[in-house]
């Protein structure tokens, strides 16, 4: 229950929900605020095997494939100066529920987004 206060507290202190830190002589990591993207078809069925590319200010910074739940997760810097967009591509044709139309989604303002993909005719 008390953990519920953590994120609002952090926002009040830093103006950001994002907890990015680099421990001592370590590399920076974002410990909070993943961008969770879930892809489903028109019947709410998760789509596995979609290629999801993450763009930070239009630079491709990461890519991953959706799992059994149709989900991928990215961790980003989440600062005011960054804009985040994902492109979702069906790269396996008819496998995993059919062939779907690619989609671009801006995820700057959200940490979770469910994307419904339309099937190709």
């Amino acid at each position, binding site marked *: 229950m008390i953990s519920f206060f953590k994120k609002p507290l952090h926002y009040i202190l*830093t103006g950001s929900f994002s907890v990015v830190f680099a421990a001592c002589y370590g590399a920076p990591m974002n410990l909070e605020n993943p961008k969770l993207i879930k892809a489903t078809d028109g019947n709410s069925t998760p789509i596995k095997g979609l290629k999801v590319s993450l763009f930070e200010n239009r630079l491709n910074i990461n890519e991953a494939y959706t799992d059994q739940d149709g989900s991928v997760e990215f961790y980003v810097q989440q600062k005011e100066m960054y804009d985040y967009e994902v492109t979702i591509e069906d790269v396996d044709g008819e496998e995993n529920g059919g062939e779907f139309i690619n989609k671009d989604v801006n995820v700057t303002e959200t940490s979770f987004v469910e994307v419904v993909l339309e099937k190709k005719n």
Partner: protein
Amino acid sequence: MKLKPKIKQSLHSFYKSIEIKEHKLSYLFIEITQKCNLDCLHCGSDCKAEVNHPELTTDSWFKIIDYFEQTYSKSVAFVLTGGEPLMHPDIYKIGRYIKEKGMRWAMVTNGIILNERRLTKLIDSGIYSITLSLDGLKETHNWLRNNKNAFDRANIAMSLLANSNIAFKDIVTCVSPKNLHELPDIANLLIENKIKEWRLFRIFPSGRAKNNKELNLTFEQTQEMLQFIIKSKKAFMAKGLNINLSCEGWLPMQTDLKVRDQPFFCRAGVSIASILSDGTITGCTNNHEGFHVGNILKDNFSVVWENRFDIFRKREWLAKTDCKNCKHFKQCNGSSIHLWEMGDKKPKFCYEVDLTVS
């Protein structure tokens, strides 16, 4: 939201108390080797080209990664450190193994052997974040790194990194009396190279730097470094470079938020743990031996994490130190663990009180 520093300080203390109570492991250093291709004057681990103790094998690291995947959340991030992690012949295998388990990994490097081919292999192995050391302009960096080619190699590595699609990348600079006045020029060099994040450190008074006064900033010089950040943070941010003080050293909130994006919180043993190359379990890699709390070769990590990390979290041992009489004690709570040797009466350095005159 504009709040008075005292209120912010209280809220931050509350925030820290929640984090300490939860002590959710999020960040794991694995020191894959102590071998290093440099012989830096300021090395906190006293690393050399050869190591005199047995190191964990690649298979052992795989088992450790399996253990953390099964025991903790996949949100635990691994930071491969050393020594120079690129000296480990299986760094790509270890990184890829972490990535294939669905977890993130990062690396800290001196950049000496980071070329395009190696960077491509790191990216192919799923690396998420890289930190590169740059300790001054050419002469100063080469002096501190004890190698006449160190700056040129780091410069090449910096350019490669800046143009790569790695999610997080930053430059760290160990500030010493020799490079203190170069900071504006270093900032401009980073901007020229399109680097966006820069962290400044004092040199840790440990390892080879322990008794080398030539390397350690005095209290006044440290204040000068803080003033540099305070005065130039906005101007450099406008040019695309974000400057931060490292996570070392408690500061009053009104100063802290001028030099760091996030207020000071020593997370060693709270959300950070380390496994050293001989299996030692501790908080951060540079914590003194008195804070080594187990060994992965004979201890169950989660049992150690739950039962032996109170010296990091509760810090009752501070009651026997001079800090208990300080007016900042309640907020500071002993500052950074790595500034202490167990049994000492005061930390190796304090950002708020000049210990040489107190």
